[in-house]
């Protein structure tokens, strides 16, 4: 779930380290004899603590004149001693002051360096992954640059001109067919054109014609060409999409197997990430997938590969604003499969999805992106979750009872207990169990689950300073409420 992303990016660690460093810095200063003026007398401090505690204790009962006099004397003594120390230390030489200043500046530099190092460490906990690298040119049969130049000069007879005015749409419908050259041209304008008007007009044209059908479910327009899986992959690749880690489902050469010639590290900012045309491209894919009964352009394996790619794309931050579009496309694609194909491919897709990232947080993100209230994606999500949970403990898990067994022998009182992993595991388990029909209220698994939640809230104190301890406690508390109903 997305809230975990932010939860894990908390600067708790940073503060702990800063505090630790500050203490050591302070101790260094205190050990220096020349800085003794800064030191507060231990005895006095003790007296002060005692007196204050005594004071508060007495105040709770009754205050006597003796007590007040005693306290007043002690305060006076303390003030005198502190002022004497200050007078002594003011006699230190200028050289010593310089040394001290150097020491302090060194310490501050060290502290800053350490803080930066920790900051980097914490940043690693931020969700998301770079999925899109540098764009590469797409081999298109049209010369976009030339088209751009001639756009205004030849609008009356060009495909683009007719497309923008809407006349191409009417003309193609009247003819009942769209020739290969025209479709290719419009498709590449949609995926490549820098002109937003042209991009959206091309997208509208293609989507409209794909979706328009006669009463007998026959398409109103016959396309003489539609992009194949290879064409679709080429577009993704040209947008900079890379998936290096996992094995493709299709077993053929595709984006995942190919590595761009450019080094991701040397990517220039200008061409990094996909162009805005990706929104039209995904909208087109959605329309294409919706008309499988008419235009079956993908095999089941190819469709499965695309499911993985669509999920993977959503791990990149730049896609966040288009999440609604990707979600709807993913739902349609999940229903592209026949029942048999889906039964056959679901586990394969789940396996691919579970290996998209090695970071548990991003793995949770993968599972979370399937959380869209669709029966097929829900089943896929459960398969992914159980694989991920299994991977996290290096065991094969099969059902909800196995999942619950993960939490049985947890020693949360250990000082170095890894609450981060527990937190993510609980989130994954929740994704599985919440849509598990066999988790009957009052059943043993349900009871065990609630029991564990209670145990977490009991073992972790609200002010527990261990990393992610209170977060985990809050989550457990919330899940307890959720599952009790």
């Amino acid at each position, binding site marked *: 779930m997305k809230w975990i992303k932010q939860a894990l*990016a908390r600067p708790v660690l940073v503060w702990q380290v800063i505090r630790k460093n500050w203490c050591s810095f302070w101790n260094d200063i205190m050990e220096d004899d020349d800085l003794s003026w800064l030191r507060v007398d231990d005895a006095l401090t003790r007296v002060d603590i005692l007196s204050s505690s005594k004071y508060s204790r007495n105040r709770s009962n009754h205050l006597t004149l003796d007590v007040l006099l005693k306290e007043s004397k002690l305060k006076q003594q303390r003030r005198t001693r502190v002022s004497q120390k200050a007078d002594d230390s003011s006699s230190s030489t200028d050289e010593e002051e310089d040394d001290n200043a150097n020491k302090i500046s060194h310490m501050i530099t060290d502290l800053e360096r350490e803080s930066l190092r920790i900051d980097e460490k914490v940043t690693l906990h931020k969700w998301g992954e770079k999925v899109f690298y540098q764009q590469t040119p797409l081999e298109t049969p049209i010369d976009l640059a030339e088209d751009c130049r001639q756009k205004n000069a030849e609008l009356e*007879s060009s495909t683009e001109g007719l497309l923008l*005015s809407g006349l191409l749409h009417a003309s193609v419908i009247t003819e009942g067919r769209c020739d290969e050259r025209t479709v290719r041209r419009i498709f590449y304008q949609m995926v490549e054109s*820098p002109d*937003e008007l042209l991009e959206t007009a091309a997208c509208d044209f293609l989507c409209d014609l794909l979706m328009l059908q006669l009463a007998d479910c026959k398409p109103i327009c016959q396309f003489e060409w539609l992009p194949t899986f290879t064409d679709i992959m080429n577009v993704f690749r040209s947008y900079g999409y890379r998936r290096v880690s996992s094995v493709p489902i299709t077993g053929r050469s595709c984006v995942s197997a190919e590595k761009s010639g450019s080094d991701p590290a040397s990517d220039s900012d200008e*061409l990094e990430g996909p162009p805005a045309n990706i929104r039209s491209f995904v909208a087109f894919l959605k329309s294409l997938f919706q008309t499988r009964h008419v235009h079956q352009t993908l095999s089941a394996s190819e469709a499965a590969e695309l499911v993985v790619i669509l999920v993977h794309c959503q791990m990149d931050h*730049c896609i966040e*604003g288009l999440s609604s579009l990707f979600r709807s496309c993913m739902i349609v694609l999940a229903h592209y499969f026949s029942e048999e194909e889906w039964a056959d491919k679901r586990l394969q897709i789940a396996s691919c999805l579970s290996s998209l990232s090695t970071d548990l947080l991003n793995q949770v993100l993968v599972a979370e992106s399937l959380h869209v209230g*669709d029966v097929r994606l829900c089943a896929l999500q459960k398969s992914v979750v159980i694989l991920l949970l299994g991977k996290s403990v290096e065991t094969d898990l099969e059902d909800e009872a196995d999942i619950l067994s993960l939490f049985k022998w947890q020693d949360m009182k250990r000082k170095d207990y890894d609450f981060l992993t527990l937190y993510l595991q609980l989130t994954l388990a929740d994704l599985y169990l919440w849509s598990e029909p066999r988790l009957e209220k009052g059943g043993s698994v349900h009871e065990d689950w609630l029991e564990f939640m209670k145990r977490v809230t009991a073992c972790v104190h609200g002010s527990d300073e261990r990393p992610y301890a209170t977060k985990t406690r809050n989550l457990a508390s919330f899940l307890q409420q959720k599952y009790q109903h």
Partner: protein
Amino acid sequence: MPKKSRKNDEIQVPTTRRSTRSKTRHTISTERISGNENGSAIAIMAEMPKLGRSNGKELFVAPEQRSQWMYRSIEENLLTLLEHSENADPEEILEDKIMFVEATNALCVIPNLAQVPTQKMLQAVLEFIQECSSVGLTASSFNLLADLEKRHPRVRVKESTSPDSGRKLAELIIDEKVWSPLEETCQELVRPDRQLVPSSPTRVSSNIFILLEEIVRRVQQEGGVESGKDVVILSQFSMLQHLMRLLQTDLQCRLEVFDSDAEKDYTLVQGSYLCRLIFGLTQAEKKSFIMSLKSIMCPSTLETDDSMLEDGRRVRRVCSKSLRRVREESTFQDGTGKTSDSVEKNSKGRKVLLPATREFGRLASDILVLIVKVDTLNQMYGLRAAACNSRRDRLLFETLLNLCREASTLDAYLKAVADPTAKLKFVMDYFLNFAPQPVVRSLGDFPLIEFLEKLLSYLSEKKALKSVVKVFKEADSLPLLLSHAFQAYLLLHSLGENSTNDQGKNDAQENRVRICKFLVAALINLEDLEGPNITLPTVKQTVFVAKRISGF
């Protein structure tokens, strides 16, 4: 009769542990055909949630089975997540909000017997969009609202079959428990001290009138629809799309029942949010509302700079960059007015992609199409409705017609009207309103296609054309009008061709050739008359297509 593919429209809700009690499998639909005007057969691309038709009954079982205590308890528990102290860390606040969204999704969308979201819960989610704090939160809140609207529609149609006649009956079901921001806006309009003015530049209003003002203001101040912070643009877009969806769903359901009602009970349509909103405005406010829509719809503010079109690759880069925003630009404005770095900023400062800026214009055009539909119905049936609104004039339509005297607005509006019948009707009304009276009288009152043929035949004569050209403010308006009418005609012709026999097909072909000839003659004459004044390539394009189709 054409229709869109519905194969994947219906999506099953995942089975949950609760489904063991109820063995039924529910389905919810995600999209539906929209934009059918006057019951036409043609379908358009716009997404529209299908309303709870077959599954509505089951969806509402769960909350009634639950105890009131539990109902309140869930709401309270969720809302507790949003309680923060004044000095709370912005990251923590954001985190809790995202948790709230996820929890609401888990309780109200995912389960088979999902909880109906309460008013406070819906308001909280809407608030997340309004406050423009983060791209991620806005996107997930918008997704949640869309899912909730599909899962728990406020208005839906229940279909049944009459036991006596076997006829299909449609009944309008309104679930008062489901809160809608439009209801709040309707109530606001009744207040005498209402103010339809944007209050804060960093906040997005859920009042559609104020929201449109805010968008116009941003466009004017910042020089384009795409200008401004990412998160503000996305929030405004999400809010407008959400409100538009609510308006559309509500009106479409009511129109469906109205169309199937033998008695044509117009109060059904009058009760729609759109009618209540539109007719709750004063005349000046109506005009201002239409003007706001026009400002957003006008394509001149959306076009990219042609001077950049030198090199394909470079242009692509430049344009893409202008459309993608750097996340770091987003800043978080908290309640105290203190601005801090966005909690959305990621380690590498990756850019965020947004929906196409033209989508704003499209949404504005869609709202105008709905308004014209309501206005037309009001004209037809409003008079018959007992003691209904006294302001039954066609101010809205007339305002729109006046705005459409500008060629750019006319083009944008006609491109938005997907239904060919509605498009032809608009063209007819346009001529009837603006053409000189003798011309109108000579055209007479005919069905749409015949009217078009008669009009083109009339305009193919140079003398007659001259008398009509004078009334148009801009030289591009008439060719645009004829081009759109021609497109609508071709679409209607293609659809009708498939449903007729051979003789009918031959007649239709002849008719098409005739219309093409008249059109070509009219446009060539027009070019002769207005040649240098016509700036758009519409005439040449239309002549090119008409010649190609008719084969001469």
